[in-house]
């Protein structure tokens, strides 16, 4: 596995896309989120809790609280320590949409279903990834704040506790829908999945990066 920390560059047929800290942040967030979603959804899906039984549900409750510590405390410090500059650019860039981004979003549904469409050139993250990023950033904040409030829910004013519970469970399900889309695009969708290795080794195929993120690719220092 390449462990370079020197930032974006091209090497042969490959382009370096994510440094180790970004990958740690991504996978700690991804795995902890999925465990939290699974253990939390048992309380939401009708009949699931009764089916699983009391001791399993209590185990889920404990797991949910332990994994919540990872979800809360790993990703942000990892980015702050190991990828401060690029993470800052990612956050700022995620909330900025130019004309090409809007045109990308308009054409994306066709691309998603494999229909022929010409999508405009994109930067380091395309407009769809920016939207996913916005949901992940805001969603993380909402889930962390409401989640830790709920650990002490019986000490909160009742009205606040009710709103907190409603917000926590709805946001979780919404993020669950977002993550289904993200996993599908990243690992199955033929146009997007060549980028998967960006989150394992950090490197992606140059041909794919050129097609997918042309504005970013063209600014990369050669080697």
């Amino acid at each position: 596995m390449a462990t370079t920390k020197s930032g974006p560059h091209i090497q042969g047929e490959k382009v370096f896309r994510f440094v180790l800290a970004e990958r740690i942040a991504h996978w700690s967030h991804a795995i902890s989120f999925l465990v939290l979603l699974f253990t939390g959804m048992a309380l939401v899906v009708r009949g699931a809790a009764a089916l699983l039984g009391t001791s399993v549900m209590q185990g889920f409750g404990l797991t949910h609280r332990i994994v919540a510590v990872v979800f809360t405390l790993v990703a942000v410090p990892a980015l702050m320590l190991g990828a401060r500059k690029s993470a800052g650019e990612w956050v700022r860039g995620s909330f900025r949409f130019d004309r090409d981004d809007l045109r990308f979003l308009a054409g994306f549904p066709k691309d998603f279903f494999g229909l022929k469409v010409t999508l405009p050139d994109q930067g380091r993250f395309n407009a769809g990834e920016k939207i996913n990023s916005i949901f992940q950033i805001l969603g993380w904040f909402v889930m962390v704040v409401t989640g830790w409030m709920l650990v002490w829910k019986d000490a909160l004013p009742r009205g606040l506790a009710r709103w907190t519970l409603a917000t926590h469970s709805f946001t979780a399900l919404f993020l669950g829908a977002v993550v289904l889309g993200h996993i599908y695009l990243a690992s199955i969708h033929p146009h997007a999945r060549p980028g998967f290795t960006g989150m394992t080794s950090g490197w992606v195929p140059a041909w794919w990066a050129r097609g997918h993120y042309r504005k970013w690719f063209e600014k990369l220092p050669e080697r």
Partner: protein
Amino acid sequence: MTHYAYFIDLSVCAGCESCTVACQNKNGLRPELAYTKVHRYETGTFPDLKSSFVVNQCLHCDEPPCAEVCPTGATYKTVEGPVLVDYEQCIGCKYCIVACPYDARVFDEEQRTARKCTECADRLVAGRKPACVETCLTGARVIGDLDDPKSPIHEALKRPGTVQMAGTGFYFRLPEGITKDALADGGGTGVVRAWQSVLQPAGQLIMGGAAAALLASAAAFAVKSVKGGGTGHGHD
């Protein structure tokens, strides 16, 4: 059919808390746990003060929010009226504590369950009165079957100043000069119902929609590759 109504005459309640203790005794509750609690309520400004004792306990709602939010179905409403808990099914998630409009659920830290008043359903079935009714020194508590014309509950409910708690079979008689403000209003359940019957189903629907969309996408690509059309990188 049995249709229980429960009446508490706050104008004769002496605030002795015998009900609290009798209930704790009957249900084996430690001193810090109580299903029925008595508070002093004061209103007005000196020297024009009014005071009353107010009872706080489960009102066995017709449509109990605590049962609605219970993920395991441990809390349930019986046809006779009492709202009961199957403690074997309780996982201690405390959703019921948050949902209850009357602050009537108590968390037992030792058992890790959210306990509650049973209206002494076991005694009612045996034709006896609940412990709190039986022990009340001033006869402030009356329980009876509304479908039984001979029940003393009918006389009790005729006493002036009697108000019914909306959506429950509980009635309180207020002392003179004390308004309904002294009683819990039972409000705030709108968000609980929205959470259970709108937000959670909507969230699951959105997840289902996302799953359906990506299955459709995967199917479209599968059809394409069978036809030999390749993946056609549109924006390359």
